[in-house]
Structures are given as C-alpha cells and as structure tokens.
C-alpha cells in the first residue's frame, strides 16, 4: 500500500502555510477566466469557495440539492464560530486554538492543517464582519465572545442562536453577487450522481436535475465537493433530511480515498425519538449543560413524575462519576454515560431518555436570568415537545451529529485524484476523531474563503487545462450508468419503502457501530449488512417515474449509497481496535473502564480505497506525527 503524501512544505509549523503560498506557482487572471470550476454544495464551504473563486476570475458552476443555495444545512448551526482573536484577553492565541483542536480530536488530525486553520480563524471573522453579518456585540459596540463546549477561553463568536444562518446568508450574498456579475452560474435542485475520471484526473460530473429528471454531464478543469457530512447514515440524526453520502460515495467508487469513515460524532443533548415515525432528532445546544443537571431515577421502573422524585432517589451520574467536570464533560463522555444508563433500563420510563434539569439553576438565579441565557432554546423545546422546561425537566438522548471522517485530502485540500478538491464537513482533515464545538463553521469558511482560493491556482498552473469535454466517451458511459441505476431503482416495485429500509440500516448501525463498539457487535453488523442490501435491491418500492420531481427516487438513491458506505464504516471501526475520540471500543479500556487510545498502533489516518464490488477495500495509512503538542491520554476524572 502506498503511504499517502499530504504534500506539506518543509518548514516549522507556524510558517508552513506562508511557505506554501510563497513557493507555489500562480495562475494569471487571463488564464483563470479560461478555467471552469464545478462546485458541488452551497453550505458555508461551497458558497464561500464558489464566490471567492468567481471573484478571482474563474468561471464557476455551482450545484445544490435545495431550491435555493441559502437552504444548505449550514443554516442550522446555532452555537457559534471559533477564532483566536483573544479579545477577552484571557490567554487565547493561535497556538492555543491549535492545541485545543488537536487535543479535542484525540490526536488523530493532521497537525499542519490544524495549525493553518487556527491561523486563518481571525481573517474569517474580519471578512464576515465586512460582509455585514450581525454578530452579537457588547454594550460598547465591540464583538461579544462566549466560551463553548468546555473551552477554557472565550473565543466563540455568535449571532444569538443563529450563527450558521447568518454566516451562510453572508456567503450566499457573495455567491449571488457573482451570479449577478455573470461569472458564476447556479444550478439548484440538481444532484451530483457521478464523477468522471480519466487517467487519474477528474474531468467533470454527471448530475440529475431534480425537477425534470434530466441527466446531464458537466466538464470542468477542477471539481470541488463541499457536500457536507453523512451523519444521516444513522437515519435519525441532527442533520437536515437531504444530508447524504452520495457525492462522496460516487467519488470513492471512482477512486477517491475515504478517510476515517468510522469517526462520526454523537451529540449528547438532542431531543429523544418519540415513536417510529419521527423524522429527525433536534439538537439542543450543549450550552444548556452549563446550568442543566443530568439525572435519571435511581430505581429502574420508577415511573413517577420528575418533581415527585426526591433528591436522594435521583442519580446525577455525570457529577457522580466525573466530579471535576460534572455535567460539562466532553460530548463523547456524556453520550456514552447516557446511553449506558438507558441500556441498563434506567432511562426515563425505561426508555431512551434522561433528564436535563434546570430547576436548581432557576432556583438559584431566577427564571428571568435563565431565560436571558437560553430563552430561544427553551421556546424551541416547548414548541417541539409541548412541555415547558421551566417546570418540567427536559428530556435528552444522544444522536448522530457530525462526520469527522470524509474524503482524504492533502494539504492543498485535493484528494488523491488530481483535480478533485474536498471542503468542509465532506473532507476528513481537521477534527481527528472528535470535533470541538464551534469549529466546523470555522473550518468550512477557512476551506472556502481562504484555503482553496490559494491552492487551486497552483494546481491548475501545474496541471494545465482539461482538454476533455462533455462529449467525450467517458461522460457518455457515465451518464448511461447513472441512468441505468435510476432505472433499476424504479423497476424493482417490491414491498418496502426506501425510508423503511433506511430506518433499519440506521438502527443496525446505531446498535453496533454507534457510541460503544465491540468486535462481536461489529462482526454481527458486517454479517447483516449484505443481507439488508440484497433486501433493498430485491424488495424496494419506488413509485412514479424518473422524468419529473420524484422524491422517493432521490431518497432511494441516497439510501443505496448509505447501505454501501455503512459497510465501509463498520470495516473501518472493526480495524481500529482502540478507543479514540468519540468512540469507546469495548476491548480497549483502561483499568477504571475509561477509553484507551493506542498510539503505538493507530496513530494514523486510515484512507480506504475502493477495489470493486464485493472486494475488500484497500487500506493506506498516513502516519501522524505531533511536534508541538505531546499526545496524552484524555482524562476527565
């Protein structure tokens, strides 16, 4: 197996990015106007990249699933975005943000990328303010910061509970400005269904227009995937419903490596599922854990109302087990503990939920103070559940939330396929085995506004124009393959819906490849997955035809890819016999039952290569070295 080469310039960490820029060839403005860049995705990463590339003079085509680019999933991020401004004078710095991100990722991220991310964080805030993004401010008119996700410094910038929305609308404005200027064309309601690769270089895309069903080819000099994360693999997640792995999976099947697919973050504070028909799990900001206490009744089967359960019959299990951090333990620790209680039958009403209780905080600080901090969250909870958290403790349960894994990219954000760049949640690069709060928005915007616009030119300067246009045979054959697959999905006419099969897949993965994983469970999942795939291809029901808006067909295609991707995720999890980041591996615990990372064996990025249907994928290991922060075992006890 080859050792993946990230192409990191040889320089001390703080100078690598400058060195890269100084030593890379440039592409002249006249040449940029002759290059077409295909950008898939209009979240923070895709919109920022597409707008900036058009500003630089490239011709850009932008594709997204929704009817408007503004509806990409980034819109839903609530909490905030990190930057190392140190406005609070609390000891923050680029180094500290780098350090926290590397440590938070449990030493499974690439040092040079993370350092660059921390370096670029400040320029993001400058740019977003210049765009007129209404960040929350102090009385004096300066930008406000808060501490987020257990960080010891206040480095999170926010626009009340709508940070993702405001950042995305800024990037969307930039995108539309370029569309109005004519250098950029928008292709909403369009789904990428294949990547065209000739001689190891990416030449373009095959897409399906979701209203007409038309399958079209687009050629370009480079392709940028910014298609978001794949947490919907688990069916129920905090992600928007259209979240999928299709773009990444199609690229993987054409030779792009998939890195660390098993690293998926489970967020502890989500609304629990109620009944089998629920369509998603809504995230409740983890800031609630600053004042909320997590507990369950001590006795299994205790069905009394929360208020009727006396103090000494409650188990505040996080405070009990982790007195130093209490309810503020990291996401993975909280998720695991909550799940463990519920698996023991100690969940509320014996089910999958625990209390997040604000009663003590309300008693101590008064309801108005609590409402000032969390008013919109409390309203949201009430709107969704009908219960008022001021009187009744909230119920929460962990849910799949964010995929740290994604397509492998080098330092320039290019995959192992020439000309394929991968940005935002879709790549694997910066969060290792676990992501810190408020750092995904930072990464998406760093990738889109600042990194790709500096790495694409050098690539194109070296690679030259792509002479293959959409009339080439490879485009025709790829289009035919896409059409044949759509036809196959429509023809089965069996007796199960794609949604139903997706639920089954989600439960299987949640049980065997979720927060806690074991050799036996993973093997059981691997045995079941091929059968589920057969069931899908033998018994699926997709009504209607392919020549107009057919949402069942869209979902079926995405579930088909999830089914294949699920197998890779389980294989990756199986091969990584260590507890790491957000996952506990049963066989890898310390004496006091805490997760145990195994750096001697697993301090690498696992980059998987597709070897054909039914073949075991190949594994490339990119070793990880840490020069500025020595890897230590995490301990919160």
């Amino acid at each position: 197996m080859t050792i993946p080469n990230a192409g990191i310039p040889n320089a001390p960490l703080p100078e690598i990015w400058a060195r890269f820029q100084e030593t890379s060839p440039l592409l002249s403005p006249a040449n940029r106007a002759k290059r077409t860049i295909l950008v898939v995705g209009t979240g923070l990463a895709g919109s920022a990249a597409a707008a900036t590339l058009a500003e630089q003079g490239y011709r850009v085509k932008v594709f997204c699933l929704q009817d408007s680019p503004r509806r990409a999933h980034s819109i839903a991020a609530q909490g905030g975005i990190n930057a190392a401004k140190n406005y609070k004078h609390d000891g923050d710095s680029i180094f500290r943000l780098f350090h926290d991100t590397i440590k938070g990722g449990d030493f499974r991220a690439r040092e040079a990328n993370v350092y660059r991310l921390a370096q670029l964080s400040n320029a993001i805030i400058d740019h977003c303010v210049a765009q007129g993004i209404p960040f929350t401010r102090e009385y004096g008119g300066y930008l406000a910061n808060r501490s987020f996700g257990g960080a010891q410094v206040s480095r999170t910038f926010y626009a009340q509970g709508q940070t993702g929305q405001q950042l995305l609308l800024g990037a969307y404005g930039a995108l539309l400005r370029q569309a109005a200027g004519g250098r950029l064309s928008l292709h909403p309601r369009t789904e990428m269904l294949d990547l065209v690769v000739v001689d190891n270089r990416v030449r373009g895309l095959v897409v399906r227009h979701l209203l007409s069903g038309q399958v079209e080819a687009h050629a370009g000099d480079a392709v940028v995937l910014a298609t978001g994360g794949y947490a919907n693999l688990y069916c129920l997640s905090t992600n928007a419903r259209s979240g999928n792995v299709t773009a990444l999976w199609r690229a993987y099947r054409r030779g792009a490596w998939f890195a660390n697919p098993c690293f998926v973050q489970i967020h502890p504070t989500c609304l629990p599922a109620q009944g089998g028909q629920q369509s998603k799990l809504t995230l409740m900001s983890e800031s609630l854990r600053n004042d909320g206490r997590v507990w369950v009744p001590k006795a299994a089967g205790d069905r009394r109302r929360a208020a009727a359960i006396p103090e000494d019959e409650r188990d505040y299990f996080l405070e009990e087990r982790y007195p130093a951090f209490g309810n503020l333990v990291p996401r993975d620790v909280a998720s695991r503990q909550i799940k463990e209680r519920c698996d023991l039958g100690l969940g509320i009403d014996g089910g999958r939920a625990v209390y997040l209780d604000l009663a003590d905080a309300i008693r101590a600080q008064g309801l108005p103070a609590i409402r000032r901090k969390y008013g919109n969250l409390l309203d949201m909870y009430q709107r969704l559940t009908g219960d008022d958290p001021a009187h009744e403790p909230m119920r929460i349960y962990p849910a799949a939330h964010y995929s740290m894994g994604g397509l492998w990219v080098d330092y320039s954000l290019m995959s192992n396929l020439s000309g394929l760049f991968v940005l935002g949640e879709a790549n694997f690069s910066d969060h290792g085995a676990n992501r810190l709060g408020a750092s995904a928005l930072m990464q998406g915007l760093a990738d889109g506004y600042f990194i790709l616009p500096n790495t694409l030119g050098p690539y194109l300067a070296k690679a030259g124009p792509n002479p293959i246009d959409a009339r080439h045979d490879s485009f025709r054959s790829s289009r035919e393959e896409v059409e044949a697959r759509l036809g196959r999905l429509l023809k089965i006419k069996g007796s199960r819906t794609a949604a139903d099969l997706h639920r089954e897949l989600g439960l299987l993965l949640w049980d065997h490849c979720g927060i806690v994983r074991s050799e036996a469970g993973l093997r059981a999942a691997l045995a079941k997955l091929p059968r589920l795939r057969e069931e899908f291809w033998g018994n699926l029901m997709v009504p209607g035809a392919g020549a107009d808006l057919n949402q069942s067909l869209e979902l079926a295609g995405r579930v088909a890819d999830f089914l294949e991707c699920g197998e890779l995720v389980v294989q990756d999890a199986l091969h990584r016999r260590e507890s790491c980041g957000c996952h506990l591996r049963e066989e890898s615990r310390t004496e006091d039952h805490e997760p145990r990372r195994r750096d001697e064996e697993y301090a690498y990025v696992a980059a998987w290569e597709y070897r054909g249907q039914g073949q075991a994928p190949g594994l490339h290991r990119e070793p990880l070295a840490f020069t500025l922060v020595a890897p230590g075992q995490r301990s919160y006890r």
Partner: protein
Amino acid sequence: MEKLIHLTLRVWRQPGPDRPGRFHDYPSGPVATSLSLLELLDLVNERLTLNGEEPIAFDHDCREGICGACGAMVDGLAHGPKSETTLCQLHLRDLADGGLVVIEPFRALAFPLIKDLVVDRSALDRIMAAGGYVSVDTGGAPEANVIPIPQSDADQALAAASCIGCGACVASCPHASAMLFVGGKVSQLACLPQGQPERARRVLAMVSAADREGFGACGNHRECEAACPKRLSLRHLARMNREYLSAR
C-alpha cells in the same frame, strides 16, 4: 401513554404545472399527537408508496424551522394556525382531534407551481442577487473590531436578518407582495456601517427586481407580519420605504 388523534388531510394534488389539480382526502388513522404535520405527511406517503401510488411532493429539509424549505397553506394560513411556527414545527397537538386539515401550496404569480405542494420560489433569489449583500471581495477586510457598532444597531440588524426566505409573507399577502422579505435585507444592511456605501443603490435595485418578478405592491394589510414564522416586524418594511423614498 401517547395521546392519539384522528384527522383527515385534504391535500392539493397536481402532477405538474400544466396539468389540472384537485383536492384529495387522506384519513390519518389513529396518530400520536407528538408527530409533526410533516411527519404525518411522511406516514401518508409511505402508505401511498406501498400502494404503488405517487406520494405527495413537498419541500422540506432541516425540519427545525430554520432552512425555510417547507411551507404550505394549512386551513388557509401560511404554515398553519400556530404563530411563529414553520410548517415543519407544526405538531398534531396544535390541531383539533377529528378535524379536517386543508393543505394547499403557497399561491402567488411569482411562485409558479411545480408539483403538489412544491412551488418555485427562485424569484426570491433573484431579488437578493439584485443587491442583497455588501460588495466586498474575500481578503483585505479590516480588523473586525475597528468599527464598533452600537449593540442596539447590531440587534436590530440581526432581527431584520432573521428571515428564512420561506415565502409565507408573499403567500399570505392579498397582493402577493414580497416587501417584508425585501425589507428585512434592506433594513439589516441599512442599520450597519458596512451597508452604507451601497445603501441607495441596494434598495432601488431590490425593489425594482421584486416588481419585475411579478410581486405586488404593499397594501398595508399586515398579513405578512402575522404569518412570518420569525416574526419579522413591519418596522423593517417601514424602514425600507423610508430608504426607498430618500434614495430616489
């Protein structure tokens, strides 16, 4: 125990823009009140699918009231009877047991129907493209804290910027006016120093884009404000009118 109710959904079905449409009734059977109305539509759709019938097409994505993809008239009201609520956040507990629930697409000249409950709202993107931004290229922005912005201005700007672009304002307006939508963006940027250089050009360009797209003029009915799931205040529309008059 979960509370169960029965509803009859009367849904507008129309296979395409040039094909006739009609209402169709779907009994819900007993369903938990904890479901959202869209989850009930999911359920109805699964049943239709298993019968080999085409499910009801509707737009949706985040299912938490922020992406603006969902939207339909429920009993004549955009996003249904509950205030400050998007369609995806409307729950069956908000509806009366045993009732008939009439669901139709947003209707406006500038929102051509695509299929069933799905309409084309791309006109809103084109209004934004006319000027709903600050013209700043990436790179070269000054340090973020160089210009302090009074907290109240920033708060007002954020309130104006809370629009999710769902189109409920248009669908509820007797004139199918998009002025609350336009007003949100104009007002946001008028409140901020960064919006000043293009202030006059922006409001003129966005208002004339709305006219071009076939949205009506504001008749002060205030239906938009009542229907807006984010409660965008009419103040933003008023500010836009002032901006418009002084720009001309």
